[in-house]
């Protein structure tokens, strides 16, 4: 194969891969952004992701309606979020520890109830064929974009707008930045945090439904490879800004697509190394942002890791 053509193929495959792989990152990152903006960290969104994937797959299998599966995943995420939110509101409870416990809990019940769904085929969410104009089959394939990706974009823009232009948005930021000020204005920080955690959990659940209903598009126990945890790093990288979350998710997505894209042009050397790209990226981002004063400055003041 000519090197130029190969490069083109890799780039197209990475574009498609970035869009596909980024979708769950995007939902989890937006969910985590809402939660952290309220001054709390939910490290357990990996649990929401896996449980959401399982619930979506099961519902789609039983009803034949994949969108009902998405709604179910959202609901499952809400419930886990509510659990996290209420437990953390008890006195002397550490949100990080609770997050890790609930992550194990979410994954555990997903595996427990998910056993029967590993074999059967459930109806999937079909992508929108946006590449019909092109004669390049690789490009057509890359532009098969799932509607959930666009839903994620819409939510990101809406969240970005709401944080600046609505009263609930301002109250959320206020609670996350200065609890005494919130109290002085008659806002109940506990309630705001529970609501934010619930909503964030729901979004992470939707991210899970993408995993099982679109890409990879089946249910098994190895479905998620830690996207829920990496999304937390991604939020720091995006400095708690929903629009930057989109770019950060695409970047993580592209990193995740690197291995398969190279393989598609026959470069299989170092396949495992390239597959590890997202994790290496996470590590670098954590190190870089830990040193960056700007990120520290943008962090909501009430976060337990910031205090």
């Amino acid at each position: 194969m000519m090197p130029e053509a190969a490069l083109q193929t890799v780039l197209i495959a990475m574009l498609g891969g970035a869009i596909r792989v980024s979708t769950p990152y995007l939902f989890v990152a937006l969910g985590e952004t809402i939660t952290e903006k309220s001054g709390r960290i939910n490290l357990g969104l990996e649990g929401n992701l896996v449980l959401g994937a399982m619930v979506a797959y099961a519902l789609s299998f039983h009803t034949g309606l994949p969108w009902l599966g998405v709604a179910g995943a959202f609901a499952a995420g809400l419930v886990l979020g509510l659990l996290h939110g209420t437990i953390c509101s008890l006195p002397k409870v550490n949100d990080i520890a609770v997050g890790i416990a609930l992550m194990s809990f979410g994954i555990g019940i997903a595996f427990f109830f998910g056993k029967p769904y590993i074999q059967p085929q459930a109806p999937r969410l079909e992508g929108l064929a946006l590449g019909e104009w092109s004669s390049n089959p690789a490009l057509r394939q890359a532009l098969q974009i799932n509607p959930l990706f666009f839903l994620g974009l819409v939510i990101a823009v809406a969240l970005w707008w709401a944080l600046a232009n609505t009263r609930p948005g301002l109250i959320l930021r206020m609670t996350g930045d200065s609890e005494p000020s919130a109290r002085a204005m008659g806002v109940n920080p506990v309630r705001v945090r529970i609501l934010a955690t619930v909503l964030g959990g729901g979004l992470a659940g939707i991210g899970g439904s993408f995993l099982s209903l679109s890409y990879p598009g089946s249910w098994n126990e190895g479905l998620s490879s830690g996207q829920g945890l990496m999304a937390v790093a991604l939020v720091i990288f995006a400095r708690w800004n929903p629009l930057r979350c989109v770019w950060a998710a695409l970047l993580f997505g592209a990193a995740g697509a690197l291995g398969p894209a190279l393989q598609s042009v026959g470069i299989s050397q170092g396949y495992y190394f390239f597959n590890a790209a997202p994790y290496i990226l996470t590590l670098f981002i954590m190190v870089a942002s830990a040193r960056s004063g700007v990120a520290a400055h943008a962090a909501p003041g009430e976060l337990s890791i910031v205090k």
Partner: protein
Amino acid sequence: MKDLAAPQTRAIGLETVGMTKVFGPLVALDDVSINVAPGSFHALLGENGAGKSTLVKCILGFYQPTRGTILVNGAEARIPTPAAARDIGIGMVYQHFTLVPCLSVAENLVIARGDKAPVIDWKAEKAALTAFMDRMPFRVPLETPVSALSAGEKQKLEILKQLYLNQHFLILDEPTSVLTPGEADQVLGLLRGMTEAGEITVLMITHKFREVTAFADAVSVLRRGRQVGGGPVSEMSTDAMSRLMIGEAEVRPPEARAEGVASDLQLELTALYVDDDEGLPAVEALDLKVRGGEIVGVAGVSGNGQSELVEAITGQRPLKDGRIFINGKPFEATRRDYHGFKVFGLPEEPLRNAAVRRMTVAENIAFRAFDRPPMAGLGWWLKPAQMRRRAAELIAAYRVKTPSTETPIENLSGGNVQRAVLARELSQDVRVLIVANPCFGLDFVSVAEIRAQIVAARNRGAAVLLVSEDLDEILELSDRVAVMSGGRIVHIAPGAEADRQTIGKYMAGHA
């Protein structure tokens, strides 16, 4: 909201009847009845820990009084929460700020209004806010995030916020401690004008008699939680007020400045560069020498790099470049060097910079020595009983008002936190002393005490670097006066020759 739909235009009158507030063993307020007439400017005086903040927090619904009632315009009012107070039209400017740092000025104002419309129409709001700012005698930039405002601007914004909320009874807790005297006069003059017009009533806590005589109509004085007197300002002398405040207690006379203190000590700051939180240069190429037996006062308008300088010397902020030498040996802000060179410090806002809020008074007082004999054996075995004993001695010696050695330090009144830290830092052999705004929010007894302590340390041969925004304090205490502006030392003069005009010009950056 009620107060927006039917704006009340008249000042509110307020009366407390038999207010009592008990915190565990401590009676912070004991049967206090004050009457603030509508449209008056009422001052509340009292030494540190007298219960002033507690009284107004009860009025505001922050605390529930143990006993007693509040009458608003003559009728009994129940105020269970701060939101209830706001709805009645009572607003407060707190001793610490309640602005949200990450929100802009405009966002802070709009969110404070507490009405329910979910979507904010920024175009209309901005227009209304600009119109509102135009009516005010001072303004704050609307788009700036609050975290980027100086302390003075924040204080002005707190007051603007209450006026914006249409509150007709304003409570101010030491509103001018972070303002320059000029700014203070401007702010208080505006409020005074509004009381005379009958638009608002003001209840102000202050430690400055000058403000009481210049702006207030009436005073009430608290001592140890009890109301000990009060009346129209015109009938009371400053002397009478101070006697009511402190009773029989003695005010420490100013410490005489010993001449020609012999000391071979030298603190040297060479070419210091320090960045602020945003990574912009805050201190640039700063050189300064302080000899033993000398107080060098650094004057300057707040926000010209003084806080960053002090933080860098005390190790709270990295030095970007430059070195600190003590007697020619390099000094690093480590525990070992602090102990070895006998360096001590009183940073500003001690509750934030020099104490751990939730730890007890005894533990906070032990920070300097908890890991050395007699408070520790073998370098790691702590002896809490020793700590408590030492803390009790220092609490008595420095007259810290605290319910016990085991109270979390955050429950102490503002002035008493300051004293506790002072007790820790000044009770040993001090060679180098770094002091920043040591008298913020202190009553005159404490101010006299602390200034005397600083001069006494100098007389014993310590090198003292005093950073203060209070020019009077600088002129009173310093052997040499340095002026800091834009992150640099722009002027140095011997204290005896320093005159207010010249220094003022350098402070303003006009020289």
